[in-house]
């Protein structure tokens, strides 16, 4: 598997991988859309942060790593979770606050986990997952187990000083960690331009110390290729990378689309970015090259729909935690 991925870095991305990534992005998109549609039914009593428009980053990054590698995620984490291979039923059950949820109903939308695929939990403190992911890379380095760690965070998190501290340490210790800044232009209703004066300072770092890239995060080929480079670098002990992905948050900050307050951003801006949809562009490319047919897409859509229906049914039919569960696992045994 890793051999195959390595070869791809020389060959470019092959058709199978492209189709796999198309499917994976489409699946994340459809899951987000279903959550959005169902949200006002009040069955998911948890603040959801949807990642519509940003799927290429999660998928492109996670396709370049192995199941045993780690990711560290944030409040807008459904895409990271699914791209890494997290269990869909358990995600939807968690959104329904059920005992069968990935966090047993103790976490909710912002605190999801699937340790079986290297997802050790997401933080809803902006920037909080950055040092944790860095620490997982420290563990990999100390154990010499070859695992890399990928840290996803937003432009809001890049305001936080902990990013500076973490990258400094990652460089010092040549840690196998890849920092992925998803610059979606907004932190709630604050545009990045009112919070940061110029491009992130890490783009100016010596490339030997920190591989940096500033890429179109809606172009999955770019995300994947840059990641392969960063992963190779990490696995060969050369140290960390910092990849800024230009993207956009299509839906509101939290909740469903209709709950997004009006007036803080231009409709034009949203529409322009809808045109730059990463799924649409990959679909075009695949279809233009004759690699994907309409009936194949229909088939994928119906598979995904069935899977989502199943996941929602599973969630709805699952038991809720009860009073006896309250004390839960405050401490591990």
């Amino acid at each position, binding site marked *: 598997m890793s051999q195959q991925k390595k070869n791809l870095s020389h060959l470019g991305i092959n058709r199978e991988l492209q189709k796999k990534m198309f499917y994976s992005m489409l699946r994340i998109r459809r899951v987000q859309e279903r959550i959005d549609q169902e949200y006002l039914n009040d069955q998911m009593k948890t603040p959801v942060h949807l990642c519509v428009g940003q799927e290429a980053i999660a998928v492109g990054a996670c396709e370049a790593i192995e199941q045993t590698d780690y990711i560290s995620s944030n409040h807008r984490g459904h895409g990271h979770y699914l791209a890494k291979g997290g269990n869909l039923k358990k995600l939807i059950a968690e959104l329904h606050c059920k005992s069968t949820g990935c966090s047993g109903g103790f976490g909710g939308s912002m605190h999801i986990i699937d340790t079986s695929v290297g997802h050790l939990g997401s933080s809803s*403190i902006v920037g909080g997952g950055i040092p944790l992911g860095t*620490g997982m890379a420290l563990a990999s380095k*100390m154990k010499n187990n070859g695992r890399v*760690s990928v840290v996803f965070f937003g432009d809001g998190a890049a305001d936080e000083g*902990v990013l500076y*501290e*973490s990258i400094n340490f990652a460089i010092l210790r040549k840690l196998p960690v890849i920092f992925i800044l998803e610059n979606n232009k907004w932190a709630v209703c604050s545009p990045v331009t009112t919070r940061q004066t110029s491009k992130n300072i890490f783009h100016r770092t010596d490339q030997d110390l920190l591989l940096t890239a500033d890429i179109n995060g809606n172009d999955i080929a770019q995300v994947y290729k840059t990641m392969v480079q960063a992963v190779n670098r990490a696995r060969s002990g050369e140290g960390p990378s910092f990849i800024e992905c230009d993207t956009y948050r299509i839906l509101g900050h939290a909740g469903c689309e209709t709950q997004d307050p009006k007036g803080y951003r231009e409709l034009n801006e949203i529409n322009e970015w809808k045109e730059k949809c990463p799924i649409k562009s990959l679909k075009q490319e695949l279809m233009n090259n004759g690699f994907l047919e309409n009936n194949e897409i229909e088939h994928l859509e119906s598979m995904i729909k069935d899977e989502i229906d199943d996941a929602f049914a599973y969630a709805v039919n699952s038991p809720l935690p009860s009073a006896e569960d309250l004390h839960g696992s405050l*401490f591990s045994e």
Partner: protein
Amino acid sequence: MPWSRIKTDYIEPDFYGKEITGQRRLTYSESLNEALSQALEIDSSVFVMGQGVDDPSGMFGSTKNLQEKYGAKRVFDTPLAETALTGIAAGAAMAGMKPVYFHNRPDFLYLALDQLANHAAKWSYMFAGKVSVPLVIWACIGRGWGSGAQHSQALQGLFMHIPGLKLVMPSTCYDTKGLMLTAIKDPNPVIIIDHRMNYRNQGYVPEKMYTIPFGKGVKRRNGSDVTVVAISHMVTDSLLAAEELYQEEKIDVEIIDPRTLCPLDEELILASVLKTGRLVIVDMGWKTGGVSAEIASLVVEKGFSSLKAPIKRVTCPDLPTPSGYTLEDVFYIDKNQIKKAVVEAVLG
């Protein structure tokens, strides 16, 4: 697992003065150093980090020579970045390591609070026990020589308030080793708040590895008139006070050292108050909303009928620590304040 072979041992055979001939005596720092060294020896997932752990003085001697013995990969100095390094330690712990992160002073832990309180302390609960965080944080309260407002804070009350953190405050050479080993073995975040004055102690320390169960306090002095619950090095001052009170006033003081504040040995405290009917709590932290307030509430809630007199608390005043020595003298508590409080508790 290397840790399953280590025996639990909580009877300290020798405490303050009662020297047993032929027994090995160590200084406080030697004892802690031995615990760390043995843990590094038996478990390759253990590592020691912190600003200055490789200094010649090595955390008041506690981490001395560990880097020479175990290498710079496992014992290393850190950048002055307490927020990230706490998160990095926690992340490494989630991924299977056992970090021990040293800080000279608890004051610096304010910078680490996000990662301690929002992350390490909550990870097990928030994810239904799917991931544990076996992280040890150690910091040592300073006192005197003008340490002042930002180098002498006793923050145990703050940490005791946060669910998901275990909180340890040793007072003897024997305990500092055993409790450190228990902390490293424990799969949860553990904060050890030590005190600079404990470093004056010497005592019997077995060479073998041993752990001390969390939540088991000890009776440091048997007495019948009044219970004194004393935290960390306040145990030493309370013992001095008790001996003098016995000589001077024939007041017989029982001294309880909880050793860990979370979990807290409620039974031991309640049983002692049931016997004596009186309680004085001695803690060098602040009074309001702190450790002494918590222990007092515990006894009021669960042992009210045992009480023959109001509870007394001996704590530092609710002020930042002043630096000048004349002000320090009045700010800090010692055996005299303890004696006064005990007399008031007994005689009303």
